[in-house]
Structures are given as C-alpha cells and as structure tokens.
C-alpha cells in the first residue's frame, strides 16, 4: 500500500469507530487522541481493526508509535508494503 492508501484506511477505520469524528481540521503531526477526543478503548479498536484486516500484530510497547497520523503511516508503511 502507498502512504496515501494507508492514510485513507486509517481515516476510514477511525470514522467507523467514531461517527462523530471530524477530520476537517486534523493536523497529521499532532496527537490523534487529543484532536479527536479518543480514549484508550477507541485506540485499541484501531489496533484490533488493523489486526483483523491485515493480520498485523502490533505489540503494546509499540502503541506510542501510532500517536499521530503521520507516525502511524511511518510505522505501517513497511509492514503493509506487500498488501
């Protein structure tokens, strides 16, 4: 997947989790949780959804690397390159 495709997948997953999510003013380099008012339970859902879709196991120690949209894409790019 390309970086743009990964980004679209992430936004789609977040939109599914949170019907109220507002992406209009989303800053790709600022923490997602603060901007979207997500909590750790929602966050787990992003991880679980990635696991369900791509059989991707993200260990808990690596969750911090998913803090912003850009860092998510950086982290996922090598893992999803053959998808």
């Amino acid at each position, binding site marked *: 997947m390309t970086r743009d495709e990964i980004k679209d997948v992430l936004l789609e997953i977040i939109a599914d*989790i949170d019907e109220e999510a507002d992406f209009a003013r989303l800053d790709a380099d600022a923490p997602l949780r603060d901007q979207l008012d*997500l909590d750790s339970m929602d966050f787990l*859902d992003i991880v679980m959804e990635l696991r369900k879709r791509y059989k991707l196991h993200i260990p808990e120690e690596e969750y911090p690397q998913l803090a912003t949209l850009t860092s998510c894409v950086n982290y996922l790019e090598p893992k999803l390159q053959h998808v």
Partner: protein
Amino acid sequence: MAAYQLVIIGGGLSGLAAGIRAARFGIKTLIVEQHSLPGGLNSFYVRQGHLLETGLHAMTNCAPANDKQAPLNRLFRQLRLPRREFPCHEQIGSEIRFGGRSLLFGNDPAILEASIDRVFPGRIDRFRRLRQEIAEYDPFAAGPWRSGRQFLADHLDDPDLADTLLLPLMIYGNAEEEDMDLGQLVIMFRAVFEEGFFRPAATMREFLGLLVQQFRDFGGEIRFRSPVESIVSDRDRVVGVLLAGGEMLGADAVVSTAGIPETMRLSGWPGEVDRYVGRMSFMETISLVSRARTATLTRDRTIIFYHHGDRLQYRRPSGYLDPTWGVICFPGNFLGLPPEDPVQIRTTNAASYPLWKALSAESYESVKRRWTEAAVSASEEIVGNYRSSIVYQDSFTPVTIERFTRKAEGAVYGSAVKIKDGVTPWPNLFLAGTDQGYLGIVGAMLSGITMVNRHILR
C-alpha cells in the same frame, strides 16, 4: 483447535456486550443462555397482553450524543452501535425522602445543589467541594477498600445529608451492607447525580433485540435454553463447557457472567463460596393502574427513594421485607414519552432470601401476597392511593431472582467482594458482569467490554 475461540456463559447485558466485542474482531464466539430470552436480570415478559420489564427502572449515565468521553457513548462506540439512532428520554425529576426531609434531583446537577442549599443550610460549599473531589477521583485505579460512608462524613460534616445522598447510590448499586467502597460510590455518584436517569425510547425488548442482532451480524452465535452444567478443564486449562443435555462445547477461552458462586460451582474452583454470596436482595412489585384513576398520583416524579427513620439501614432485613425504606418508580414519567395507559408503578424493597427460601410451596403465594400489600401500602403513603385501581399486579422475590439468574441468594448486585481483574484460578476462564464489579445496565455492559478487551483481544 476448539469449536469456539470463546464461549460466554450468560446472555444478560454483560454477556451480550462481551460477545459483541469479541465477534466484532472476528473471534468465533458462542453465548449460551439458560433461558429462552436474553437479558438476565434485565429482561421482559408478557402477561395478559402487557409487556413487563423485569429490571428496568431507568438507565443511569445519561449523556448527550456529542459528549464522547461519557460512559454511555463510549459504550455505544465500543459496541459499534449508532448512538444517534438511540433516542433517550430524560427523567422528569427524582426525589429522596429521608427521615422527613426531601431532596430533589434531576439530570442537571444544579437542581440537587439548589435543593441542598434549601434543605441543609450552610452545607452547599462542602457539597460543591465533594463534587469536585469526586470528579477528580479515579475509581478504576487499583487500591484497597475505603469507606465511602466515612468519605461522605468527612466531607459533608452532616450525617443527615450524607445518609440522604447515600440512599439512591446504595440502592442502585451497592452489594455490601451498611457501607460502600469509595470507588463504587464515585462510580454511582457520577452515574446518578452528575449524569442522571433516562429511558430508551422503546422497551428492553427492543434494546436486547438490537444487541442480539449486532452480535449475530458480527458472526456471533447464541443458544438459548442451554444451561451450562459444568465448566470442563484438563489439567490447568479450561477446555470448554458441558451443557445440561450432555453436549460438550470446546472453547479456547470461557467468560462467565453467572457470578462467582455459580462459576465456582460450575468449574470446581476451590475456595470458600460463602465469602462471595451477597446478602442484599430485593422484592419488586409491578402494579398497573388504569390511567383514568391516576389523577391524584404524582406526575412530576420519575423515581422516589424513601427512608423512614434517621440513620440509613442498608442491610438484609430481619423480616421478609422491609417496607420502611425502598424505591418507587414510575417508568412512564420520562420526558417526551407518550402517556401510558395503564400507568406503571414499581416498588422495590430489601428482602431476606433465607426467609423466602424456607417457605413451603403452599405458603409462598400467601406470604408473597401479604408482603406485596405491605409494599404497596408503604408506597401509597408517599405517592397517594392506587390500590383500588390496580388492573394487573405481579411481584418477584429473592427466590425468583435466584431461579431466573442463578445469582446466589438472589443477590441482585452479587458478591460484596468483587474480582475486579476478572481473573480466576484458570488462565483462560474469566469473570464478567456483576461480580467483576460494574453494576447496573450500563455497568454490566462496560464490564463485558472491559473484560474482553483485556483478556481476549490482547
């Protein structure tokens, strides 16, 4: 590989929520429920053409759909249910009548503050500081038991106000007698006084239907009329459940919502069962009264918590039922509901399981009638007379609760000792629901969600 990755014992609110979470992420999940209907304590039945709900007075934790951090909305997100399609009807207003005083509260905490200011002059600043402390307290952090009663006494410096506030918090969510763990008090204070009461637009039947549908849509399987007879283990792991009919269902993991005593019995979990048998149970009477005859009844109260006598007596009574304190609920008195006819009145009083259990089949019915009368009389002193206009009436006792939910001694809120991490002696058997520690409808669902997130999805 086992037939199921996860088997959940119990199709009550915690079991359904747990099932939706697991199935949503592709885990092959089966819920087994002994009854022909879902819901457990919070189910429904139809008698003489009336749909009667078994548990619901009100749902707690009312919140507008756009408040993302509110427990109710987190719950909907976790279950992937569209919150906007779930209209809530807020309460009209509730009242605590305690030893001759009365406090009013609603879903706006300002109502309670104004009432405290009137009834307990000079206490309002202390109450505001208490609210602040409760807002900042983390009830989910692990820690030793702390006395909620002492906490209120220290902050309010007024035993009457402390007991008045405790009454609804205990009745709607305390498994212990006499005192309440501070963490549980904080959870209940927020659920009742900060967020408040509402009802879904439809009945419990539709709500349960929605949950079962969601579970099935995610690929989950549910079997009704399937009592689990034992939880089967092989060496140090649980390998599945055995149904009463003799069918064995293999499982990689089992979540039990049947309560600690029942789970101990099913699994052969070594330990002292008595320690986990709760003592607080209740008798509830539902009366349907024809609307034409209700002109004199209270219209502007949703729930009334009452208590005669000066010091709070939250304990198992020495007689069959204690009519000196309890709850009176008008399930029709929520904003925006169409006027119901007949009008429903529910009364709930503490009741003693051992006394009810000891009755012979012949005397059970007459004793039940006698105490139904006592409960109705006690409520008439508060809301006005309605006995002569009752078109249908039904009651259930601690024995009924035990029979229908297998909660030992009919303890609605389960064991006074909770197992908050849901862990059992087996590495793949977990607890959820009442005995894990979150109580009430919203609490039970959050429990199912939390336990699956923590033990199954990781």
